[in-house]
């Protein structure tokens, strides 16, 4: 088994590659990177991929199948390589051991199975019945996203701006400063809570989160129990020196009984690297089953397997049910309006059923119009993206949020599709408009309108005043953002659709000019 020592360095290289990749995609605040890079890294995420598959079937959304097959082959490889939170936890554990304080040796710990499987049951229950809030709060990728977009990103922006200042002082303008947008308390504290929680858990046991709270870890752990390759101790050559037990981040090696709890093993291969006798390593467990099979409760195991399978196909079933609710509120008032959901999110319902709140769309939105919701979508919709027209407006030519969404909560749209997607419709309150109230020219709304759904028509005293054509409005919010009126609210604003509609294409006639040889002056 000696030759298996190559596994640990390979694992470390792959995991660093993925962590760096995730840091990169969450740093891309001006959407400069091709969306494919983002899709590559997120496509290996188990739960997002399961959610995405029914929405956008294809290779890129089949990552969960790869993870399942990989887990059935060689255990929880996912947890030590592709999972950004798992790798972050490893990095924190690494730092912990560098601390100049006396630390306890790691030893075998009993699994906290009641908590682990209760949480898994809760997660599955949530997927079926209560929307996916519970999963949002538990999923490792979503939690990593929360840390990355709310804690790491401000740090990145500050560093970028300091570097930019330094360069500008040398007359180099190649690094452009970035604007740090409004402080959003809820997402910040959510990110902070997750991060501190992870640190505390790492302090107790390196992979406590992964083996107790993480529903993905629990599922893959169950798959690992029947995997082809498992980490096993060779009873005949093992000297019970205990080095592997000390090296085990998951506290799952029981050296007294020469057993490895495969459901908790995260395939970090530390044990293989420390074993001088080459007595621990991957072993084929399917062919000589009788030797290895302990007295396990196969009935229980099958039940779990069935549940797993059910979990995998559940979103497909949920999609098939269909959920069309009409949302017409052309005459509703500003004060009663709900949140505007991103272009490609189909409907608020679709968003709430598919979004895990990782914040990637919010991170990459170049105009910063996407902001995390507080209670706008209701309690179960916290942290979901919504358009905040006070901060920005949706760039007509941009389709970034749908391109990077790892779950298909925001479907990828082509630019022509996006330009005909109506997230809401324009409402004009003439009584509030500057042109009427002050009698002076403005037109800021019409100026910003990409389809001229807001256009200026003659008004008294040579003035022009806005008029609206809601049919060609896409609900981008440019008019609302640009309107100089703020009290009590903009004179022109977007009223959201609960279910997005199709906008009509704007038509304009080709201008004709007669060319003259003479100068007109």
């Amino acid at each position: 088994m000696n030759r298996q020592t190559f596994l640990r360095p390979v694992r470390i290289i792959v995991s660093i590659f993925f962590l760096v990749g995730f840091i990169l995609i969450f740093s891309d605040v001006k959407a400069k990177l091709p969306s494919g890079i983002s899709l590559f890294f997120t496509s290996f995420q188990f739960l997002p991929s399961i959610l995405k598959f029914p929405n956008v079937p294809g290779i890129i959304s089949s990552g969960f199948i790869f993870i399942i097959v990989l887990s059935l082959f060689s255990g929880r490889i996912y947890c030590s390589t592709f999972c950004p939170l798992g790798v972050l936890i490893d990095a924190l554990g690494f730092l912990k051991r560098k601390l100049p304080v006396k630390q306890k040796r790691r030893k075998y710990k009993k699994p906290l199975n009641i908590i682990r499987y209760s949480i898994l049951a809760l997660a599955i229950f949530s997927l079926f019945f209560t929307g996916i809030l519970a999963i949002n709060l538990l999923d490792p990728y979503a939690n990593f996203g929360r840390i990355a977009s709310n804690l790491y990103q401000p740090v990145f922006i500050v560093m970028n701006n300091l570097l930019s200042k330094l360069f500008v002082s040398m007359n180099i303008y190649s690094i452009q400063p970035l604007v740090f947008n409004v402080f959003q308390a809820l997402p910040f504290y959510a990110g902070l809570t997750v991060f501190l929680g992870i640190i505390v858990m790492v302090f107790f046991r390196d992979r406590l989160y992964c083996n107790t709270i993480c529903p993905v870890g629990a599922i893959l752990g169950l798959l690992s129990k029947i995997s082809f390759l498992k980490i096993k101790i060779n009873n005949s050559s093992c000297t019970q020196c205990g080095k592997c037990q000390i090296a085990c981040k998951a506290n799952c090696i029981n050296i007294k009984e020469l057993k490895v709890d495969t459901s908790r093993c995260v395939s970090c291969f530390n044990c293989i690297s420390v074993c001088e006798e080459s007595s621990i390593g991957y072993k084929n467990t399917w062919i000589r089953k009788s030797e290895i099979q302990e007295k396990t409760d196969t009935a229980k195991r099958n039940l779990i397997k069935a549940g797993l399978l059910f979990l995998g196909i559940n979103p497909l079933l949920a999609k098939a049910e269909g959920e069309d609710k009409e949302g017409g509120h052309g005459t509703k008032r500003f004060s009663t309006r709900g949140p505007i959901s991103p272009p490609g999110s189909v409907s608020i319902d679709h968003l709430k059923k598919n979004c895990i709140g990782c914040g990637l769309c919010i991170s990459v939105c170049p105009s910063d119009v996407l902001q995390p919701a507080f209670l706008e979508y209701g309690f179960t919709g916290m942290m979901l993206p919504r358009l905040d027209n006070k901060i920005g407006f949706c760039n007509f030519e941009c389709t970034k949020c749908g391109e990077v969404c790892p779950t298909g909560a925001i479907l990828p749209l082509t630019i022509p599709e996006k330009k005909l997607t109506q997230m809401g419709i324009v409402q004009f309150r003439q009584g509030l408009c500057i042109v009427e109230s002050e009698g002076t020219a403005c037109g800021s709304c019409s100026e910003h309108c990409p389809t001229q759904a807001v256009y200026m028509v003659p008004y008294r005293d040579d003035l022009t005043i806005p008029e609206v054509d809601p049919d060609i409005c896409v609900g981008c919010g440019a008019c609302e953002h640009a309107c100089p009126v703020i009290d009590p609210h903009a004179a022109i604003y977007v009223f959201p659709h609960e279910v997005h509609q199709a906008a009509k294409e704007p038509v304009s006639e080709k201008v004709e000019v007669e060319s003259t040889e003479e100068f007109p002056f």
Partner: protein
Amino acid sequence: MKRRDFIRRSVTASVATGTLFSMGKWNTLLASGISSELPFDMVAVKNGNPIEMFDMGIAALGGMKNFVKPGQSVVVKPNIGWDSPPERAANTNPELVGQIVKHCIAAGAKKVTVFDRTCDEWTRCYKNSGIEQAVKDNGGQMVTGAIEADYMPVKISKGVTLKETKVHKLILESDVFINVPVLKNHGGAQMSITMKNLMGIVWDRRFYHKNDLHQCIADFATFRNPDLNVVDGYRVMKQNGPRGVSVNDVALMKYLILSADMVAADTAATKVFGIETAMVKHIGIAEGLGVGTTNLESLNIKRISI
């Protein structure tokens, strides 16, 4: 502690010198005003591509050396307001901007910076307008206009409504200011030409819209006259401006107007566009404030047809 003190002192000193330095330049800027040695008050060029029209126009004014002295810093302010490609003419023609940068560098400019306070998201505007590439290719540097901290409070002594605002520091610090608007229709301000283009160097545009747009545009025109205005009338957005909906809004007119007088340039541009100058209120108000003249007959105009 000694080292810390040293650092602290040197930082303070450099900040102080920096401030003095920029103040000094600012004062000379304000004093210099419009160069009186130009051979013409205005040059109008037609029927060429943006590059050749500019080459001929600037040559008629005695070359860029009449505006940019070796070692000076130049700021070029095109219209880059929208995430829109060149053929839609919502932004200044990128080839024209690139050519202006090229002439400035050739005249010995120490640095040429280009910026706009965009309406759409700025990185997309810079890129998709083609201006970023054109500027870089010709040796200039793009600077963001999206950072509020870069805008410095100024007083507009001749302003009627707009008496103070915040202006981008590049306008205050650069030796030479070249204003490069694109000629287009504008829903709110009727026309967007040289004076309307200056809304892209101030931070708070909302104030303008709230407090009589035309008066504010004219007020701000009294603050700092550009050393040169180059009006891009190559592709002209005739309707649905300033953003436009499609290429249907655009006519190929192939004009270029160069002048140091914003009121005169705007007057000539309205005539090219085919609208009564009086319809564009801020032009008349600015003339009343002494920014320039709408009486083109009083000016020495060079007309070039290619």
